[in-house]
């Protein structure tokens, strides 16, 4: 355990214990910042102010560095995602195979731009910089499940199903 006083857990939400566990596994070393933020991201779905402050304080990392890291990397999001997430891969292979058409169709259907969530908090539309399934391009991730050789129609049908499930 470090010699400096540890901040209390922000609430009795059990997920904070998971976050604390990651930090303990790394001996509360400063370089565990990214690993810890990964844990926050996967347990809470996003990084909020409370979480970043808590992690920064626990690891004795300047708040500026913690915010810097949280905003630098694309994987971390500072806003909660929608109930469902449609991620369109915009890697080169997908782009050549018409991922831009998919993006346009999704943006039109959901009436939001990429990186945003519908006002009702149901569907988030995200982009990816290549998920490494280029052999199946164009690909999208429907709630983290990979779908390959996607036609706009197929994707729109999925969006409709999600919209109907409200």
């Amino acid at each position, binding site marked *: 355990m470090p010699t400096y006083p540890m901040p209390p857990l922000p609430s009795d939400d059990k997920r904070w214990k998971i976050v604390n566990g990651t930090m303990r596994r790394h001996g509360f070393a400063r370089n565990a910042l990214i690993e810890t933020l990964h844990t926050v991201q996967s347990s809470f779905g996003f990084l909020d102010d409370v979480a970043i402050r808590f992690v920064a304080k626990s690891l004795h990392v300047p708040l500026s560095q913690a915010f810097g890291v949280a905003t630098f990397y694309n994987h971390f999001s500072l806003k909660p995602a929608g109930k469902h997430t449609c991620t369109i891969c*915009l890697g*080169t*292979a997908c*782009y*050549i195979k018409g991922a831009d058409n998919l993006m346009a169709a999704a943006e039109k259907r959901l009436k*939001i731009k990429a990186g945003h969530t519908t006002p009702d908090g149901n569907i988030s539309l995200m982009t990816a910089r290549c998920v490494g399934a280029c052999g199946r*391009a164009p690909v999208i991730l429907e709630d983290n499940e*990979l779908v390959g050789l996607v036609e706009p129609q197929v994707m729109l049908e999925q969006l409709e199903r999600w919209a109907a499930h409200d």
Partner: protein
Amino acid sequence: MTSEELVQVAETVTAERQAADFEVNVCVALGCLSQHSDKLKDALCAEAVASGRNCRVRGTGCMGLCAAGPLVRVGKPAEAAAQTLYAGVHEADAREVIESLGNKPVERLEAHLDTYFHGQIPIVLENSGYIDPEKIDEYISRDGYQALIHALTEMDPQSVIDQIAKSGLRGRGGGGYPTGLKWSTVAKAVGTQKYVICNADEGDPGAFMDRSVLESDPQRVIEGMAIAGYAVGASKGYIYVRAEYPLAVTRMTSSLQQARRRGLLGNNICGTTFAFDIEIRLGAGAFVCGEETALIASIEGMRGQPRPRPPYPAVSGLWGAPTLINNVETYANVPTILRKGAEWFAGIGTEKSKGTKVFALTGKITNTGLVEIPMGMTLREIIFSIGGGVPNGRKFKAVQTGGPSGGCIPEEHLDLPISYEALIEVGSMMGSGGMIVMDDTSCMVNVARFFMEFCMTESCGKCIPCRAGTAQMYQLLTKICDGRATHADLELLIDLCDVVKNTSLCGLGMTAPNPVLSTLRYFKHEYMEHIEHQHCRAGVCACGRKPANELALAGVTA
């Protein structure tokens, strides 16, 4: 473990395999998994049990031909080469596949792709598709870890480095720096603690070799890193892998545990004094972290921003200690080189580029997937013979290699034998091995703009030429695409390319202008058509006609 114990494990696994009359191998790498090959495997298992036949169903790594998935290979365990490859197999076909074992193969499912595998030399991919990636013993049964044990017990670190140097292996991450030289620099560096890092932050969009190796044959990378650790005198290794590859992370994590349990990682490996362990560090979605100093910063828990070199990481890297950084594919070559000898490896390839290279063949091409070809093969052979050419009767226009740092190669250079130097000469580069084929429906100006947008958003913002230059170049390219540009804009663009290329801090900025320069070199007429006649011959740009996406966007209220 000793080499006798290795042989014992190998014999047990082989005996178990041979005990079955037939084996059914199902690809469970990402490409086929996305088509539910896991459910297919369950269905095949159920059918195999129901049929009462003595056959074994198992999941294996990538078989290469991702577009034709899910792939299944069936046959007698003893004759791996004579097994039948089925493509596009679905759950409904499970019964037919099992029933056909030992009889005539199911004709409608057979993959007739002899040309695809013809000419390929698997070294890095030698086990992909032949072993269950989640079981270390299967890797051992195909001569795995023999190289490590041999190196530890019978070679001193210097002779390991000599072997690697003699083999002529060069970095497979893109730069092509001689691996032996890098290793000996780290070995000579002064320091009690040294590190070995595996760069698995495969950021190049359109490349997926590293993912496939990590998912299909993770132990090979661990063995390569351990050998490197022994050669340079490091006791700690890190694998920096993208968070976008969850399957690779899971398989790597369990592979590390198995290697530890078998005593191939940890203290006193194989009864020697050598100690080595590996930790996984997750990337968080930043392309620039493929640059070695940025990657080190990221492992240290900072923003992934590069720093000026020298000092090179080989002298002062992770936490100021001498650090060896190599790519996944480079490490994957190491065990085979030590096992089969440097001369054997040096006998493959061209004079300056030895061995093989794995390419991810994608885009407008019939057979998309992974290929491993000897250096010196021509682009034409890869694209038209192995890849099967451009589908739908379209005309080949260009092939893009090297990701956002590379360039587009037109038809006139297709007879170019692949090597690091040859690709640079025609204005592209080897890169990590993405090969994206484009036909006449792709506009080259638009492609250049696509890559520039990528570099612009991925620029870390530390140095001005890259941060501001890529944004300006992107705007100029957009202007050209929209048909609003003049000749002066084009000249400015060319000027900017020169400035950004020569004054940026790291590789991302220095190579960001490459897609523009290479398209300008071979497809200047397309730029001219956009500027002078507001015409886009591929019909994708905003000039001439409104592109589909812009029409659609008009209806969007953000």
